[in-house]
């Protein structure tokens, strides 16, 4: 197949005029970015917070009951569901008469975790969530990446979403639209109030 190349005008064939036009473009970009640095698409992460999507799977946390004890009943569902085998649970008897077991050890090896979220879906008690919004897990020692139960219980959810969803003024920012109904539904009601079932 023959693709006809466009016929060039004489000043285009001279090359110099087109060179000058190209140089005008690059200089335009240079000057715009030099004098309007805050409008550049680059986000100076981690100093500058990045607008995060509300459904982001961050690192895990274990939720608490109202009395402050962990919701987890050490049923091993998350450990079983985990494709990366990063969850390690040891159960013990719970002092509560209505609850059978509670976790004595609940370790998550973040170096193995693939952030698939299967553990969250497997949990029958809503005891494990991935809504902390923390995605930068940094250390210079391997041991630090194994998160113990007391650390997981201290994790905070929800709060980051308020600053995370804020509309970004930048060109090319990643901000999602302010949470509308569809976003709430997709989120399974975890982002805010549980969705009201309309009618079955």
């Amino acid at each position, binding site marked *: 197949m023959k693709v006809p190349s466009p016929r060039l005008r004489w000043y285009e064939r001279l090359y*110099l005029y087109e*060179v000058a036009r*190209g*140089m005008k*473009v*690059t*200089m335009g*970009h*240079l000057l715009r*970015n*030099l004098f309007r*640095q*805050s409008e*550049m*698409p*680059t986000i*100076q992460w981690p*100093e*500058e917070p990045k607008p995060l999507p509300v459904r982001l799977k961050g690192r895990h946390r274990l939720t608490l009951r109202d009395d402050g004890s962990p919701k987890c009943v050490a049923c091993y569902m998350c450990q079983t569901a985990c494709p990366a085998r990063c969850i390690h649970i040891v159960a013990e008897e719970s002092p509560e008469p209505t609850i059978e077991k509670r976790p004595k050890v609940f370790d998550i090896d973040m170096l193995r975790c693939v952030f698939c979220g299967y553990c969250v879906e497997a949990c029958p008690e809503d005891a494990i969530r991935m809504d902390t919004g923390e995605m930068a897990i940094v250390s210079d020692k391997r041991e630090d990446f194994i998160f113990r139960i007391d650390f997981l219980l201290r994790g905070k959810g929800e709060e980051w979403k308020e600053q995370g969803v804020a509309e970004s003024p930048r060109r090319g920012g990643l901000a999602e639209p302010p949470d509308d109904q569809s976003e709430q539904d997709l989120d399974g009601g975890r982002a805010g109030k549980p969705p009201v079932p309309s009618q079955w």
Partner: protein
Amino acid sequence: MPAFLAHAGTAILIWIFELSMIPVLVWFERKASAYMQDRTGPNRAAVLGIRMGGLIHTIADVIKLVFKEDATPSQVSRFYYTLAPMMAMSVALLTFAVIPVADDLAVGGQILHWQVLKIDAGLLWIFAVGSLGVLAVILAGWGSNNRYALLGGMRSSAQMVSYELALGLSAVGILMVFGTLDLNRIVQGQGNLLFGFLPMWGVVVQPLAAVLFMIATLAECNRTPFDLPEGESEIIGFHVEYSSLKFALFFMAEYVNIVVAAGITATLFFGGWQIPWLPTASLEAHARTVLLVSLGGAAVLFLLLAGASLRWSRRLKRLYADARRREGDVWAGLLLGLAALCLLGGILALSFPSQGIAPGVFARVAQLGVFLAKVVVLSFLFIWIRWTLPRFRYDQLMNLGWKSLLPLSLLNIVATAAVLRWLGR
């Protein structure tokens, strides 16, 4: 003795200028290219929170290059392999020697030349020494004893030899107009006015030659769009086998070559040390006024920059929690200090002597400053072109050199000769 001091002083100054332009050009290259492509570029490396807009990264680069292993492959011919980078660098540094940085100054019956090497055939020196750069490329390709390096070296040297023709022939036009090979007299000739208002710069009297010369210097320096030796991914250049500081020498030689090329272009086509509409005599006569105006201008510029730094400082304070948050304040303080220094200098300059040696020396310093500014601007042009244009293919490169630039430069000589004959010169 003063004559020797003038030469030695110019030599040291030029040497320092050439070498200190390397990090500046690397910084231009990284930061300007980043802004042209809507990136931020280097902005992380810091000394005590001072990042100088990414200039500190250059120090980090140098430290990395110095401490890298200098791996010498076993099959190379050691002598040529080691000689080539040294040669590239020393040839690049030598070329600047004949370029005058200021007008001659008569002191106590002696004429001081602000030129490292005062020879009548200055232009010939440039072409003679400049073409030795090809030898470094060939030696590197041959000495590496690597087929790719040899081919790359052959390719680069063919390119440099081809474009040297166009380079030399386009400079012939300037030679005919000013009638001399002495670079200082060429620059002095460019101080005249054409039709009474236009400075007779080379680019005005020889526009075609100026364009041809600048294109040819791009090719001579192996810069984009003719940077085939640098096409790391698609074709391999002559410096495949080099690592660590030996590679860095080639790399630095490239930037020195840019400075040299910019210096030659400024000297031949952009009036060298000439300040337009301000020849040496009137510069000396109005030394005080010029000094006051330039100091005032500098003070205003520093104040504007200080204001910009203060605005930037607010953004830094919002972003950073560490030492970097103070950088805007540091710069603002520094710039305010410089502005105050300029104003103080202005007050002192009110009593600037109009007699004796002082106005003459001031005029030379001003000319030196203007010349170096021209060199920096032209060097930036090289980088600007690099980040705008794509690379030429090898056959396109040769076609352009032999079928366009060479005939055009010959045509330019004929046209110049005809015009000069018509003018009766």
